[in-house]
């Protein structure tokens, strides 16, 4: 079933915050300014593992700065990420620390009248450290003789002991794995190591906090969830929730790095409360690079298949290097197994996941929450297995894929639902045809310097953490819609738009459902005090889950409009229709087939005011009862220069099943951006550490954390994007998500393309020119 008969859905519309963005008038957190505002700086640990023996801030205070240290912040141990239930949440964070666990760990903070003065005050703080033994590798970190990074952490209100630096574990077994492998004709077992990437969202983390006369605070910050920010500040500082107001502010990208409340927020709150003045704490890029990164993972993956291509068993051991703190690593262990079992049907499976502390920057979600990592490994192995079996990878993957009617794990073992729409076969077959899959070279057969190869990777992501029963993930959204007296509508939601155009999609859903021109919908700049709770813009849920709340309030408002119009027009409400009147920029309610029986929504709303009928409005708080996957398939052609090891993309064909496509150009933009991120995940990005000083090798500077430029990617005419004709029955007007599925299969497709070109497989990301050249030389030598 496909989307049909829509007026706005499926048409490309400019994003509604676009004019502000192209004219430089959009206000991001870092643009917030108050006349008496103080500028803050953070004192960071220069050691990867240490204890503060002595700290003297008197010189900083003599310079007129407000200073807070780890001794003055509330003695609260917390977890900054609040999208899971307490059962799935381990707490090991403090606002500032006297026992820093990575280079960059905040110890104290200062605020002064200018950034320069704050900097001077920061440099005047005198600290003496006792240096402790650090761990930079999770395997090393787990050795019993290693120094504990956290001895005790908090879980469900109680202290728990940490052994061998293992933060948390998860084990799952289904069926009989040994029997499954013994039935297999081919079994492959490989170790895969991913990179530790940095989000490099363009806007570094920022918080501006204004203390209010009632003892509360107003907060503008880089966040994907204003309500969770409020909840956390309430938890740490004990300020009544109603007196904490977090304002929705444009976000300069996040990619998961602001699902958790960034450390700048509680630090700025502490400073503002002490200073009694607004405080701006804007991280520099080098500080931001010490604030968050992706999870680095080591997989031991084993898959078995019969000659006919059916998978019989799989086992996965995953070791996650989570850095110095848990940003809900436990839910990730669950998601990881969920992504794994939802790619291909495994009749028998075993999973062991371990999250391990190291003295590195804390890892957090990064677009895909473990899915790009495991999909790279699985898609690499499926390609290898297909070759062993002598089956075309396209056929092999289609034969085994989890699809329509199958159970899907949308957010780990507690969030599951049945797949009700799937365009997998359509996007895979059509993509294969468009790239010329049948004509691709045989791996390793090419000679000559420049060798080309085509790779295929497929994947998915969930479209929310909804489900038929409550799991360990919180997932619901609030929405309000009211009709203004001129026939326009105010739409109020706490849901953040990280750049994907999510709120424009909501507005389209509302306008489509009610039958009014899109420009009637006004997206209100709101805050936590004026909105219902929304969990977070993550898990590709903005359109599917948030959009459903928008759809529900639209339906309710429409019902009320028709009821009132029925009185005025002397007709039955269920027989009334609404049509958009573009000239008058509003909707007209009319009786079909009876001329002259009509009223504009503006006239009706005015009448409602004069007659004291009240405001026509609706409020809803909506939980999706399903977590449908959106599917993607990538076919990538690359060229490898065998003299320099450099790889360049030649062509990309990407198919996506996102259900109804609400805004095609922006949906395509998600795919383009997902490819760019996946491409550099595959070949470029990593944040290695310098074992000598324990700091990042790049020291926080992006001249040594390169991202692809437009010249490094493919031009528009060599990038084909198409969408499947599907309709998600549980989605708003048939829609699913796209943000993360746009990325997840890319690295696998690129790795398979490199293999197709040169006949060498790589089991460690990124596949850099250095590694490629080394492997080519070793093969020649051997």
């Amino acid at each position: 079933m496909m989307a049909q008969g829509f007026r706005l859905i499926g048409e490309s519309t400019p994003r509604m915050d676009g004019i502000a963005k192209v004219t430089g008038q959009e206000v991001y957190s870092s643009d917030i300014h108050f006349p008496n505002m103080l500028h803050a700086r953070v004192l960071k640990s220069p050691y990867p593992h240490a204890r503060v023996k002595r700290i003297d801030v008197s010189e900083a205070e003599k310079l007129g700065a407000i200073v807070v240290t780890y001794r003055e912040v509330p003695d609260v141990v917390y977890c900054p990420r609040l999208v899971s239930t307490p059962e799935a949440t381990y707490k090991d964070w403090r606002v500032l620390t006297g026992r820093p666990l990575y280079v960059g760990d905040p110890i104290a903070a200062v605020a002064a009248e200018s950034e320069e003065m704050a900097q001077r005050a920061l440099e005047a703080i005198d600290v003496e450290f006792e240096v402790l033994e650090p761990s930079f590798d999770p395997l090393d970190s787990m050795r019993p003789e290693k120094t504990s990074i956290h001895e005790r952490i908090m879980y469900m209100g109680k202290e728990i002991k940490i052994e061998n630096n293992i933060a948390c574990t998860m084990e799952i077994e289904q069926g009989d794995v040994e029997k499954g492998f013994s039935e297999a004709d081919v079994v492959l077992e490989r170790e895969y190591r991913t990179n530790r990437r940095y989000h490099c969202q363009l806007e570094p983390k920022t918080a501006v906090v204004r203390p209010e006369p009632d003892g509360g605070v107003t907060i503008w910050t880089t966040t994907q969830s204003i309500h969770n920010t409020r909840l956390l500040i309430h938890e740490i500082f004990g300020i009544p929730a109603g007196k904490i107001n977090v304002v929705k502010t444009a976000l300069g990208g996040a990619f998961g790095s602001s699902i958790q409340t960034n450390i700048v927020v509680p630090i700025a709150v502490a400073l503002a409360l002490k200073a009694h003045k607004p405080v701006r704490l804007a991280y520099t890029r080098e500080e931001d690079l010490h604030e968050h990164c992706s999870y680095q993972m080591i997989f031991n993956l084993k898959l078995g298949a019969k000659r006919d291509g059916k998978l019989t068993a799989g086992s996965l051991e995953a070791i996650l290097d989570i850095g110095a703190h848990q940003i809900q690593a436990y839910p990730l262990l669950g998601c990881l197994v969920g992504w794994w079992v939802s790619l291909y049907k495994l009749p028998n499976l075993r999973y062991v996941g371990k999250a391990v502390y190291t003295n590195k920057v804390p890892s957090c979600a990064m677009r895909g929450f473990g899915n790009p990592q495991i999909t790279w490994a699985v898609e690499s192995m499926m390609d290898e297995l297909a070759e062993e079996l002598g089956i075309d990878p396209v056929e092999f993957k289609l034969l085994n894929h989890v699809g329509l009617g199958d159970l899907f794990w949308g957010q780990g073992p507690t969030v599951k639902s049945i797949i009700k729409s799937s365009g997998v076969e359509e996007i895979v077959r059509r993509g294969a045809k468009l790239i010329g899959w049948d004509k691709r070279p045989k791996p390793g057969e090419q000679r000559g310097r420049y060798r080309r190869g085509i790779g295929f990777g497929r994947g998915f992501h969930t479209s929310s953490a909804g489900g038929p029963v409550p799991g360990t993930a919180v997932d619901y959204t609030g929405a309000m819609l009211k009709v203004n007296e001129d026939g326009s509508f105010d739409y109020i939601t706490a849901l953040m738009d990280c750049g994907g155009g999510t709120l424009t999609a909501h507005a389209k859903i509302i306008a489509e459902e009610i039958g009014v021109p899109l420009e009637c919908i006004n997206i209100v700049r709101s805050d936590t005090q004026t909105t219902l709770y929304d969990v977070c813009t993550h898990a590709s849920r903005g359109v599917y889950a948030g959009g459903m709340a928008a759809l529900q309030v639209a339906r309710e408002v429409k019902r009320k409009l028709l009821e009132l119009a029925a009185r005025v027009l002397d007709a039955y409400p269920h027989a009334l229709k609404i049509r958009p009147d573009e000239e008058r920029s509003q909707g007209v309610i009319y009786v079909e087939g009876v001329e002259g029986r009509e009223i504009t929504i503006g006239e009706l709303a005015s009448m409602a005011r004069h007659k004291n009928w009240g405001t026509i409005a609706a409020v809803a708080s909506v939980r999706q009862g399903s977590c449908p996957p959106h599917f993607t398939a990538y076919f990538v052609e690359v060229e490898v220069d065998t003299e320099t090891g450099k790889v360049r993309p030649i062509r990309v064909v990407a198919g996506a099943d996102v259900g109804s496509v609400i805004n095609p150009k922006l949906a395509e933009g998600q795919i383009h951006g997902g490819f760019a991120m996946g491409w550099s995940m595959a070949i470029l990005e990593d944040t290695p550490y310098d074992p000598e000083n324990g700091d990042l090798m790049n020291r926080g500077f992006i001249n040594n954390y390169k991202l692809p430029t437009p010249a490094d990617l493919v031009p528009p005419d060599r990038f084909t994007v198409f969408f499947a004709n599907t309709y998600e029955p549980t989605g708003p007007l048939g829609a699913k998500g796209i943000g993360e599925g746009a990325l997840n299969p890319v690295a696998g497709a690129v790795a398979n393309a490199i293999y197709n070109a040169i006949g060498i497989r790589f089991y460690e990301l990124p596949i850099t020119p250095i590694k490629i050249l080394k492997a080519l030389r070793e093969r020649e030598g051997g």
Partner: protein
Amino acid sequence: MRIRFKLNGREVEAEVEPNTLLLNLLREQFHLTGAKYGCGIGECGACTVLLDGEPILSCLTLAVEVDGREVTTIEGLAGDGELHPLQRAFLEEGAVQCGFCTPGMILTAKALLEENPNPSEDEIREYLKGNLCRCTGYVNIVKAVKKAAEEMAG
């Protein structure tokens, strides 16, 4: 130090320190926050403004250096409420996502079109390589610049 320069077509004056950066002068004294801090070391291009019509990095320019010269920021691009064709094309082609790179990107593109009114896609990709975007993969940005060029050629 007192400096005078033309800012978005208007003569202005400012009192600056030798170590004041142009980016901070624009953002803090003139409240023109369209130019963004993205990296501080000239890698990302979010702070791009036009100096005498040429794109430069305001995070690596001392405020004193613009004395007597002409600075254009994104706020100075749209005339009389009318969007510049590049701004319109960026909107229509879906070239804007989070929008943080957009002001710098559009200003660089403006300089490109003034220098080369009919650039090829490869020329656009080459010219924009100092403006990082983490959202769009640049595809719609390249399309938008191409479209604006066509529109401006009339």
